[in-house]
Structures are given as C-alpha cells and as structure tokens.
C-alpha cells in the first residue's frame, strides 16, 4: 500500500466528535462568559512605569541644584556662599558672625562680599557703609569704589569698635546680597600677658641696675634696657588699641550683566535633551549590568527547553 493510499484511508477514517462531547463543549462555552481582556496588566504597567521612573530620575539628576545656601559662620573658617541668596532679616540674624569676646584681647576681622544691583546701588551702599561705621563709633580705613557704566566694584575697609561689630555686620549685610563671608578671630591675650611679664622682668632688672654703681657701662645697659621696655610697652599698647577695633573688609560688586543669549541649543527642549541623555546613560548601565544575567537566563532557558524536549520525546516514544 502506497503512502498516498494510506493517507487517503486515514482521512476517510477521521474521527468525529460524539454528540455527548459536542453537548459538553457547548455547555462549557455557555456556562461562563469569557473573562474580559485586561487593559491594565503588569507587563503594560512595567512598560510605562520603568521608562517614566528612569525619566523622572534623570530629570531629578539633571535639574539638581548645584548652588548651596549660606551657612552660619564659624570663627577663623571661610564659608563661601556660592549662590546669591536673598536673605530675610531672620536669616540674616541667624547668619550673624560670632560675637567677639570683649574681655579678652582679640584681633577680630571680618570680610564681607556683597552683590548690589548696579553702579548707583554700589555708590549708595558705599556711602551707607561708611555712615554705618560712623554711627557705631568706627571709621573708614580705606574706601575704593570703581564704576563703569552699570557695573563696578568697591573695596571698603572699616574699623568698628569690637563691641559693635555684630551690629555693623548685620546692618552692612542689608546693603546687598551676601556672596561670601569670612570671619577671623585671633586671640592675643596670651601674647599680651607674655609681654607684660617680660616688661615686669626687665623693670626689675632696671631697678637692680639703678641700685648699682653708675659707671659708663652700667649707664649704657640701663639706657638699652629702658629703651627695650619702652618699645615693649609701645608695642603692647598698639596691640591692645588695635584689638579694640574690628576690621571689616567690605567688598561690593555689581551683578554681572546678563550675557547675550548664545544659541547653543539651550532652548525649551534643552531639559528634555538632558533627560534623554541621562536615560541613554542609564540604558547603557542597565545593558552592561543586565547582559550577563540575560545570557545566564538564556542559557538556563535553553537548557530547560532541551530537557523538556527530551522528556517529551521520551514520553511520546511509546506506542
């Protein structure tokens, strides 16, 4: 018997479902309505959620502020305020410099850089700064203001009584926006005390010398020691006097005029471009990290598939 004949015979003997089975299947079809296709599935949710999460993360990273707010100042420690932060009175009070200790001999100096709007504001702020110094019993040590058109800068060194330096700084900071502050406190009490002790020692030696026979050599030594004591006393007095005043180095600058717009693609879609760049970077990382796992998964999957196929073949290899 040829294969086409066999095929024909097999087709003729094709089994037909018995009526009982047909009825059973009809009942199956009728007994329940098929479940509706779910519009929201895990796969679809992930398909949307993952790119959105990446985009949000990229957006957050791309638009992360690089500026820092002004920090409270510690003595002897420079705190650079990168951002021009418009401060409220409360914030200004919180940022007041460390108070000088009036009972000790301290060299107190503070440097303050303020930003003002334009040259007119710069001029007015300079005058105000000097007025503030005068009102607090201080004086201006150096004033240098330069303006050119709308921009300019000024350097004012003020000497303020130490007891009023906090008030001075508080009022000076109101003249503009703080760009940076610097406070330095150097305690000179130990140095002054050492000078005092030295002077006392020298004075005792002077007294001893004066009690001795006054020959030419003794006279020379006496004169030298006296000059030395006077020098030390002058130096001490200068130190103590200068320590009564704090130095406030005020630097005023105008805002940088806005640069002419440069068309480098920084349009309204720039943020989107940055976000896509981050998405791309993220995708590269994901691919780099996922490739080994994907390969492993593919290996496991193909192994499991081969095993299943072998078991299936074994199952179906019997009559």
């Amino acid at each position, binding site marked *: 018997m040829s*294969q086409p004949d066999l095929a024909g015979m097999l087709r003729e003997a094709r*089994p037909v*479902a018995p009526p009982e*089975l047909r009825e059973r299947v009809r009942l199956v079809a009728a007994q329940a309505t098929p*479940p509706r296709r779910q519009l929201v599935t895990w796969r679809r949710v992930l398909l949307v959620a993952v790119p959105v999460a990446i985009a949000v993360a990229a957006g957050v990273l791309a638009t992360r502020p690089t500026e820092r707010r002004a920090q409270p100042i510690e003595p002897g420690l420079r705190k650079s305020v990168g951002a021009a932060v418009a401060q409220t009175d409360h914030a200004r009070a919180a940022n007041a410099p460390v108070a000088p200790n009036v009972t000790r001999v301290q060299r107190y100096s503070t440097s303050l850089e303020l930003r003002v709007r334009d040259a007119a504001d710069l001029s007015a702020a300079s005058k105000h700064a000097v007025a503030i110094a005068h009102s607090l019993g201080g004086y201006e040590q150096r004033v240098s203001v330069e303006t050119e058109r709308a921009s300019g800068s000024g350097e004012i060194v003020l000497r303020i009584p130490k007891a009023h330096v906090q008030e001075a700084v508080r009022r000076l900071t109101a003249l503009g926006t703080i760009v940076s502050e610097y406070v330095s406190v150097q305690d000179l009490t130990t140095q002054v005390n050492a000078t005092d002790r030295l002077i006392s020692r020298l004075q005792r030696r002077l007294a001893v010398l004066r009690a001795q026979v006054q020959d030419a050599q003794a006279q020379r030594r006496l004169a030298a020691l006296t000059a030395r004591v006077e020098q030390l006393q002058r130096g001490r007095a200068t130190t103590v006097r200068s320590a009564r005043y704090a130095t406030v180095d005020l630097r005023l600058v105008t805002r940088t005029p806005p640069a002419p717009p440069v068309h480098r693609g920084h349009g309204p879609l720039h943020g989107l471009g940055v976000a896509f760049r981050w998405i791309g970077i993220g995708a590269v990382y994901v691919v780099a990290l996922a490739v080994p796992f994907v390969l492993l998964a593919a290996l496991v999957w193909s192994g499991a598939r081969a095993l299943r196929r072998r078991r299936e*073949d074994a199952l179906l290899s019997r009559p």
Partner: protein
Amino acid sequence: MAGSQRRISPVITFSQAAERHLDDVYGYLAWFTGDRFVAEDLAAETFERALRLWHRFDERRGSPRTWLCQLARTVALDHFRSERRRVRREERAAVPERYEERLAEGLSPQLESALRTLTAGEREVIALRVVLELDASTAARVLGISTTNCTTRLARALKKLEEAVDVAA
C-alpha cells in the same frame, strides 16, 4: 500601517471556534492518545482551558484551530505524564490491564494494528499533517519544532506505517 500592527481582537467568538474546531481537536486527541474515550475527556478539558485563556488568543499569531491544537497538545502531554505516574504506581502492585480501543471507525484491521505500532509522537504528526491536513509550518508550530524536523518526522512515521501495514497484510 500603525493600525495593522495593533493587536486585533478576535473576530471569532469562543462558541464559534468551539463549534467549528471541535472535530479537529477531538480527532487530533483521538489519534494522539489512541483512546477515543480519553480523547473525549481531554477535548472537554481543552475547551475548558481555552475558555479561560481565550483573552490571550491572538489571530495574528495563528488560526483558532492551531491555537486550540496547541492547547490540546499541552493537555494531552499532562495526561501522558499523569498516566505514566499512575501506571508506575500500579505496576508496583500488579501488571495493569490494557484496554485496546479502536482508534477510529472505518479503519481496516491491518491499518488499525499498524497504527498501534506507531509511537504517540508518530501518530501525532500523522494526525496533524494527514488527518487534519495542517501545512508543515502550522503543524511544526503546534509541535514546537522546526518545519524541517516536522517534515522528517512525518516521512519517517508514514514509512513506518507503510511497512507495518505491509507486514500486517
């Protein structure tokens, strides 16, 4: 163009598919299992499962007949596995009795006995390619193998059947 790429909801309803392809599924299972009564149960189970999974059916990926045959094959394989476990359990106690059912009405005794010599896998490929007249690629998809493999398997099965018929004659 974009519209054609979207997933198309099945035009055919489950009831229509069941009515239209019940004979195909039953015939395939009858040949595959070699037992018409088992095939009835498996066919019913196949359609119960198909009803539950009907929302997953996508006409672009294959006809309802192909999809139903794939489901039927899964059901039949599950049956074979459980049957093998049952037979193993029973063999520990006693040799189980075997009931020989007729594969189909209208087969000559020689052809019937020749078909009994074929393995389930061989009967399966004959059922799909010859009895249900599926083309090679569709049958290969149901079997989960390549088209070439399917063709080879069919040729071997037919040759074996031919030889068995000659021996029986």
